[in-house]
């Protein structure tokens, strides 16, 4: 694996390997000293053409915990805002010797172009491109689902029943049912998750008003429903993933995707009543940032079922795993032996590198 551009490129084994490595990374993050020496001397560039404080901070934290040097390159206040092309930006980063470029771009396919146009030698990690993909989000979602739902069934309503840190290691998501609810049409999170979760053996049901489902969805390996109550009640999903709905989606005159925020909430919001339709073990997820009161009520967001804050923490571990596997995955023996720190910190690069 040279780049991480789309979850469609990941085999089941590769995905499990990333999740297992993330588990090892997560284990290091409960220690007092969280920093690993693994990527010392390597440079990671966060190239963000679109504002996303959350994702950038998550990647930055992940890279720094692995001792990489991090350069944040935001389109605002840089030459990009003066009209510099993606190509020239890429050539500049190449000249500066970036080992990995984490790119967020409003144009679908921009990471693909960056990785394949011959402009840079770096590993390219897609941190979200247009309506296409956001693979690390799907990986952190899969990691979160696996941790909570692959072992013994717990009562998700009971805050005391939190699963063990490394729960689910080595496993896929066979037999699980995940409902993804909301603006599927514009969502790179939905696309990434449909591909990754089904690769891992889960069944996915997309739930959205028909206006927010893309034409061509029939080719996706998932079910589609317009009836949230039906899916929550009869479908008995093990996880419910609510997608962010942008309020401006309903505003363009004649082209609004739904009549009003109120009607959206009434039909597709996860409110207190719908929360009670869920199975005891079902968890509630959201990629953030949430619109409380629109797609998700405060009851749902703050309920013990909600793993939304944990998703953020898992995001760091998953991004550490991805950076590690892309930048050090094949030379891990040497690097870890030299530093002698990885095993002590609970990461077993030998295992990760050879699996």
């Amino acid at each position: 694996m040279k780049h991480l551009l789309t979850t469609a490129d990941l085999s089941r084994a590769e995905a499990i390997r990333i999740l297992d490595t993330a588990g090892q990374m997560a284990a290091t993050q409960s220690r007092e000293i969280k920093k690993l020496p693994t990527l010392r001397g390597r440079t990671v560039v966060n190239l963000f053409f679109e504002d996303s404080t959350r994702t950038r901070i998550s990647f930055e934290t992940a890279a720094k915990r692995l001792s990489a040097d991090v350069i944040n390159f935001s389109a605002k206040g840089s030459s990009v805002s003066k009209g510099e092309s993606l190509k020239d930006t890429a050539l500049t980063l190449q000249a500066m010797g970036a080992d990995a470029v984490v790119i967020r771009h409003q144009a679908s396919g921009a990471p693909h172009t960056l990785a394949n146009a011959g402009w840079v030698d770096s590993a390219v990690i897609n941190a979200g491109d247009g309506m296409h993909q956001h693979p690390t989000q799907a990986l952190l979602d899969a990691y979160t689902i696996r941790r909570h739902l692959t072992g013994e069934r717990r009562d998700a309503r009971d805050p005391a029943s939190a699963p063990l840190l490394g729960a689910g290691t080595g496993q896929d998501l066979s037999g699980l049912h995940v409902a993804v609810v909301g603006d599927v049409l514009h969502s790179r999170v939905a696309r990434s998750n449909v591909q990754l979760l089904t690769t891992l053996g889960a069944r996915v049901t997309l739930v959205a008003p028909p206006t927010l489902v893309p034409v061509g969805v029939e080719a996706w390996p998932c079910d589609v429903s317009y009836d949230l109550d039906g899916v929550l009640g009869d479908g008995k999903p093990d996880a419910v993933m609510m997608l962010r709905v942008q309020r401006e989606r309903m505003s363009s005159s004649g082209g609004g995707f739904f009549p009003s925020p109120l009607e959206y909430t009434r039909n597709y919001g996860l409110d207190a009543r719908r929360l009670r339709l869920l199975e005891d073990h079902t968890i509630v997820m959201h990629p953030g940032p949430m619109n409380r009161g629109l797609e998700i009520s405060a009851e749902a967001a703050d309920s013990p079922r909600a793993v939304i804050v944990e998703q953020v923490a898992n995001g760091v571990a998953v991004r550490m795993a991805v950076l590690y596997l892309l930048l050090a995955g094949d030379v891990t023996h040497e690097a870890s032996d030299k530093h002698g720190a990885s095993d002590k910190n609970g990461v077993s690069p030998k295992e990760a590198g050879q699996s």
Partner: protein
Amino acid sequence: MSTRYLLSHVSPLGGDSVDMVLADGVIEAVAPAGTLTADGSDETVVVDCSSLVALPGLVDLHTHLREPGREDSETIASGTRAAAVGGFTAVHAMANTTPVQDTAGVVEQVWRIGTEAGWADVHPVGAVTVGLAGEHLAELGSMASSAAQVRVFSDDGKCVWDPVLMRRALEYVKSFDGVIAQHAQEPRLTEGAQMNEGVVSAEIGLAGWPAVAEEAIIARDVLLAEHVGSRLHVCHLSTAGSVDLIRWAKARGINVTAEVTPHHLILTDELARGYDPLFKVNPPLRTAADVEAVREGLADGTIDIVATDHAPHTREDKDCEWAAAAFGMTGLETALSVVQQTMVDTGRMTWADVARVLSTAPARIGRIDEGARPQGRPLEVGEPANVVLVDPSATRVVVPAEQATASANSPFGGHELPGVVVATFLRGRATVFEGRPVEQAEVAR
């Protein structure tokens, strides 16, 4: 004066071999193969055409020459040179130049520069509306009566979406036998559109350009043309539904003609998966089912012509992320090969059909089959010597950087295509000979 050419053992329209003499701008003689010989006293050039098919010089109804305004991507000279290399003896230069070809002055300028360049006849297309803005009719009558004698009007690149304006345009051009060539694209249904809307767009996350946005305008326009009794031409139709609509309209007796591009005969939206903007074009590449439908429509005559929509773009307009790239691909130098590969080599059309869809029919639609410099005429004695010689058995690998067009945005780079244009004659003068363009100074003589 002009060189005499004896085309020995040439196969007109793929039929029985003949000898054909081109002299003084016309086809001087046609006789059974082996019966004509060069007169030793004059300077007759004998061309061994024993493996070559002769077609009437090709006529493109849809070319973007970019001059005036975007001479960095193409000029009238470079574009018509590319046309000659592709076997064309006449092109219709689309109106979306800067300034727009919406006045007699601009169309006459394009016409004059084209005539001086001498590679192919340049017939400017007039804009339907002022500045292509879709608000007011341009001075269609003045363009028609100018030296450029404009008969084809189009806002190509933009759709004349206002139904009242479209009706007026259709009616107005009747007085000088003009035609409105519509770029059928419902604008509201295609805001921000990047590629065909379907399975591929859903997966790769590019905003969709639905087939219905093309078909809805075609349906409206054929009914308008019927209502006002006018002539309509549908540019670059690309969907199976559009073929059905044209078939229906023709059966109903509506005076409509339609074109398909070479790229819509061979490429599909699967090519967008690599996000290479070389495959970004408007209308977008469609599905394999659409490709089959347009091939069928072309074979059965529903689609009248193939037109290139040759759309050169500079490297910076294509060397970028998909959404930032310009729409369009070059086509003049590959059109005939693509038609051969998709229609002739598959047995769906004869070379006579190729002559019809790439020469006689487009010349007739553009009303350049008569007058001072007629095009698309039969290969008969006394007709103007607009002739292209093709070697259908030869193949070549497309190298965009080596093409005659000033731009390199061919979707066929690195691909082997059948058929090589060996020579192109414009009124008896070789603009291309032995596969190479004959330099401009020589042509202009």
